[in-house]
């Protein structure tokens, strides 16, 4: 009986040991999975950061090229047209006048584009000014009624945060122009002591989750926006109701800088 008792105790201990080993092994596996996931997140963040850096640099180069080269050439063309004599036949006079107007418009458009692409505007003038400038550009097209509200005491965010928020607003506005068929756009910024929020809403056609699946490019665009918001520790939410418009909300917790 003693032998059976001892062997039984031993077997019970073995069974318990095996159960604990399974638990420990699974715990280690979970740790490994968590670490792997963390590494992947860090890697994706770094990739996104590099992409954004490259994008900003490209924007800056194009902006400079427009300002320094194409803009100058067009200005020269305009000057040449201005110096043309009035002795030209009336039909040609009209054409010259039209061309002058078109070139003036092209110069203005390129100047706007150059400013909009350049990082310096956001860094120097600040996020609120840059968004105001962007909304003015859209207002100028005459197709949209834009409401721009700022509440709270305005404070500056970190340069990278402001730049990414500005690009997110640009992306949201581009999406509205390209897909929403909206007539009204509302941009609301709230500077609260502990949180910064940004809200872009439109009264366009909206979309459903099913539509996003059918249009993967648009879906990836939203994911991209979400990833960018995550990069600056922001919380990105996009809600849309078909026929009632779309709303983009970004919340950014403020830790030290106010």
């Amino acid at each position, binding site marked *: 009986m003693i032998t059976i008792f001892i*062997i*039984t105790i031993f*077997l019970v201990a073995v069974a318990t040991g095996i159960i604990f080993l*399974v638990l420990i092994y699974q715990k280690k596996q*979970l740790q490994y999975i968590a670490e792997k996931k963390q590494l992947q997140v860090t890697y994706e963040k770094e990739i996104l950061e590099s992409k954004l850096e490259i994008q900003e640099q490209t924007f800056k180069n194009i902006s400079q090229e427009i300002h320094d080269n194409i803009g100058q050439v067009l200005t020269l063309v305009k000057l040449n047209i201005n110096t043309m004599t009035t002795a030209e036949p009336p039909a040609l006079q009209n054409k010259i006048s039209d061309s002058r107007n078109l070139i003036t418009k092209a110069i203005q458009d390129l100047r706007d584009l150059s400013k909009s692409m350049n990082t310096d505007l956001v860094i120097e003038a600040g996020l609120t000014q840059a968004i105001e400038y962007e909304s003015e550009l859209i207002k100028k097209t005459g197709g949209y009624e834009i409401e721009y509200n700022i509440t709270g005491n305005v404070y500056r965010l970190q340069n990278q945060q402001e730049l990414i928020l500005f690009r997110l607003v640009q992306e949201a506005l581009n999406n509205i122009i390209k897909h929403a068929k909206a007539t009204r756009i509302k941009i609301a910024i709230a500077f609260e002591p502990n949180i910064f929020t940004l809200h872009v809403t439109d009264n366009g056609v909206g979309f459903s989750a099913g539509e996003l699946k059918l249009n993967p490019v648009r879906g990836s665009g939203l994911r991209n926006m979400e990833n960018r918001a995550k990069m600056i520790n922001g919380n990105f939410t996009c809600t849309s109701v078909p026929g009632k418009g779309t709303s983009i909300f970004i919340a950014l917790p403020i830790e030290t800088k106010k």
Partner: protein
Amino acid sequence: MTLPELIFKNFLEPFAYLVYAIIFLLKIYNETNVEQKVLLVFYVVATILLTAASVLVLYANQNVDNVWMYNIFYLLTICVLSWFFYRLLYGRLKRAFIKISLAANVIIFIIYDIILHHFVGSYNGYVYAICYISIVAYSFMYFNQLLANVTEKSILNNFNFWLVSGYLFNYLGAFIIILLYRTVDLDDTGNVWAMQNIILFLSALITLAGYLRTSRRKRYF
């Protein structure tokens, strides 16, 4: 026989199966699936059968034979648990092993109990031991499957992990008792069987703990 002796030697075993039955009854109340229904029926049958076996020996006649009930019970156990593990495991090799193991157990039962007439009045320790070791092997295969497919969810929140841990604890822990039960002195058989009953009861408690943990988490999240 004192009351504690009566409990530990006779009634702890059906009580442990009753605990299992209650666990599955509660589980079915929350979520129904075929495995749980079958296991509930199995544990209800086990509780009735083993209570009858205990009562029969205790009140009807001390010399009455109840071993045939255990012969039926162990055949039922290997059939039900083989089916349960067959549904739980999904590797081809693992499933083939279960089929072979079940077939071997049934063939051994037919040969030893029916053809060789050991069904009545004979404690078939080797047959029971094969049944026990088969279930231990199933448990190992389940753990292997669990560790080969680690998800982000902790296995402590998986009821089947607790259930199979209870099975491993019982069928490995009591293996030697089942195998050598008939070799011990007649005076000690009660104590040895009490030890088996305690291990079985502890395995039921492990499963109960698993049920409480997993059902509580489901309520909160």
